[in-house]
């Protein structure tokens, strides 16, 4: 067996056999599912909170605006006046009081909400809309406009998007693409952080165990570093595979068992709530599946593979170099910024710029810059990226990957034999010349 495969094998076995790996692998899907269930339960609990609000409408025009709903019921005390209404609201511990002054069209602050707590924006916005609509309707009637005629005259338009070769796409297809790209990019970031850290810890472990000198009297530091990165990658892939399997099965089983809708937990996300609507509508479900089939799947899988490996190697060689430079994990903090910064930037650019405009300047530039390209390009690929951009981005990624591995191995070679000194960035530059 070659030296490199020996090292890969040892690293893989060492990672996989580790107790914390086993615990992490089998416990974290349980924790994740538990969290989702807990959050959806809490959301339901939160929305079940009923409140009663006193209405004092001195203009007498808005009585029908305040109708009771599941969450809110109204007590109309317009005949008792504002002060008496306040007393009642306080004594009966009502949630609040809405006061509308006599001439809402002309007063400066026609509507006021009184209460101990500030009500949610959603609620205030809802009340504003209702009152606005009522006043607008009254104004329209005053202008002699028939409201029913106006209502029937309204129309809605869904723009059909087609490219020049005749393939049509829809808003839904955009959501599907964003979902796929976002998931791939996010997965890559998590993978880099979790397994990059693992590489780093394993380097530090060899340093603190003092076995490092024994090893590198037999193998080249470069072989050791690459073996470590590859072995840890394989362990990572194993863990992810187990997660996907175990997590998926658990989610299905639990959902069926408890009848809790897990997607309620992510309802704050507009994309997810769209997905929820989709899931509820069987016709849309078929459309969704059609859209998934229409995705450039081959490009997507191939791109995922290339960017995953390129991006992961690029970052984990930096992680390995950091591990080599320090004596213990607490000293790594100062070197973390160059890793975390581009990753965060890539994720933000991905979730804002790419989803907003996948082929805009910002998205394009960041999908070509090597440190951010793996994540940003993965998010763009579902939207069909010009071939030259992909080629340029991959070429740059490979060049940078070769450079960081070289750079990392230089630091690694010197760093693994340095003890008792907390290096600065200046020291690292000096080590390159040793």
């Amino acid at each position, binding site marked *: 067996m070659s030296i490199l495969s020996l090292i890969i094998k040892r690293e893989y076995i060492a990672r996989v056999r580790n107790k914390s790996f086993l615990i992490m692998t089998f416990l974290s899907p349980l924790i994740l599912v538990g969290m989702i269930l807990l959050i959806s339960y809490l959301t339901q609990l939160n929305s079940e909170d009923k409140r009663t609000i006193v209405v004092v409408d001195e203009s007498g025009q808005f009585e029908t605006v305040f109708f009771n709903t599941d969450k809110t019921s109204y007590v109309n005390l317009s005949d008792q006046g504002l002060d008496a209404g306040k007393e009642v609201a306080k004594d009966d511990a009502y949630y609040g009081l809405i006061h509308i002054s006599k001439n809402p069209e002309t007063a400066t602050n026609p509507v006021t909400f009184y209460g101990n707590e500030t009500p949610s924006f959603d609620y205030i916005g809802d009340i504003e809309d209702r009152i606005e609509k009522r006043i607008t309707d009254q104004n329209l009637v005053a202008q002699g406009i028939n409201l029913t005629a106006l209502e029937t005259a309204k129309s809605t338009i869904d723009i059909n998007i087609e490219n020049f070769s005749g393939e049509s796409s829809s808003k839904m297809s955009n959501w599907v693409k964003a979902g796929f790209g976002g998931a791939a990019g996010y997965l890559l970031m998590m993978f880099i952080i979790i397994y990059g850290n693992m590489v780093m810890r394993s380097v530090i472990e060899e340093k603190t165990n*003092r076995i490092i000198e*024994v*090893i590198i*009297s*037999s193998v080249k530091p470069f072989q050791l570093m690459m073996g470590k990165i590859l072995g840890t990658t394989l362990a990572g892939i194993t863990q992810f595979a187990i997660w996907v399997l175990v997590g998926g099965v658990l989610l299905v089983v639990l959902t069926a068992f408890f009848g809790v809708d897990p997607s309620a937990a992510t309802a704050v996300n507009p994309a997810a709530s769209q997905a929820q609507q989709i899931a509820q509508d069987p016709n849309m479900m078929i459309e969704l599946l059609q859209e998934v089939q229409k995705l450039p799947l081959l490009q997507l899988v191939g791109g995922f593979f290339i960017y995953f490996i390129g991006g992961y190697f690029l970052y984990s060689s930096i992680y390995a170099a950091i591990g080599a430079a320090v004596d213990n994990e607490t000293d790594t903090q100062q070197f973390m910024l160059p890793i975390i910064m581009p990753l965060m930037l890539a994720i933000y650019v991905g979730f804002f710029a790419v989803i907003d405009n996948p082929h805009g300047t910002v998205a394009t530039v960041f999908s070509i810059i090597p440190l951010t390209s793996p994540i940003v390009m993965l998010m763009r690929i579902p939207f069909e990226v010009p071939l030259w951009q992909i080629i340029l981005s991959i070429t740059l990624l490979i060049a940078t990957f070769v450079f960081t591995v070289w750079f990392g191995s230089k630091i690694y070679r010197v760093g693994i*034999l340095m003890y008792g000194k907390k290096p600065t960035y200046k020291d690292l530059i000096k080590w390159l010349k040793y």
Partner: protein
Amino acid sequence: MNSLLVADTVSKKFGDFTALNDVSITVPEGSIFGLLGPNGAGKTTLIRIINQITMPDTGSVTLGGEPLQQHHIRDIGYMPEERGLYKSMKVGEQVLYLAQLKGMSKAEAKTRAKHWFEKLEIGDWWGKKIQELSKGQAQKIQFVVTVMHQPKLLIFDEPFSGFDPINANLIKDEILQLRDEGATVIFSTHRMESVEELCDHIALINKSNKILDGEINTIKRAYQNNTFDIGVQVVDETAFAKAQQQLASSFKVTPAQFKSLGNEHKLRVEMGDNGTPNELLSTLQTYGQVTHFVEVIPSVNDIFIQTVSQNK
């Protein structure tokens, strides 16, 4: 005798710091070679260069006449001063892994490992993890790992630190046996007792320069100073006091430290080129019974301290 390893004017700088300055050593085949020097002298750097962990800036190293190449790492067994093993790995797996890294096949490694485990009577540790062993036990494993692939050249950096006296002796005997079987050994240490016992050649490195090297007895002879420790059971105290003054006028006389049962006068007399042992002995005889008369051979420790302080 052929030389197995020759380092020729090797220099190494780390930034502004010179770790080795034109150091040359020649290690004869089948010898035990002591590489001595205070902490930070550059011993470890030289050893790392021999192990191809670090590359020299200038100078060259040859092993068996060939310039050092990648495949030579199989001919070298190295036990570094900073040593350790994977704590959570099982002893057997670890030994096999490290032997395979040195180019042995798995089957071969297994046979050799079993042989050593039997020899050192540690067979029942095979399935244990390193963290379950004591420090001394782990050191034994470390020794097995170092010698398992039957290297031509064995390098030990401070080998006895961490061993209890019994195990240190055991390891020492194993090293001597390996030497007798044809291996060449380099010892790096600043503990002189072990050098005295084991080494036949030494090189002394101080502040990145080699300041002394050669065969140990030749060096000792060069530092021999015609010095004797004497003990005399004196009859006439006043006469002896005079004689002592006379001795002190021509030689350097200091009180000597050695163990004896009587209450004799104990002196150390450094004669240099001014006298012979016979003359000294006949003078002493006239004052009483000479109970002790031993030449002081310079210990490696003395030579070490003397040369290092001279070079300050």
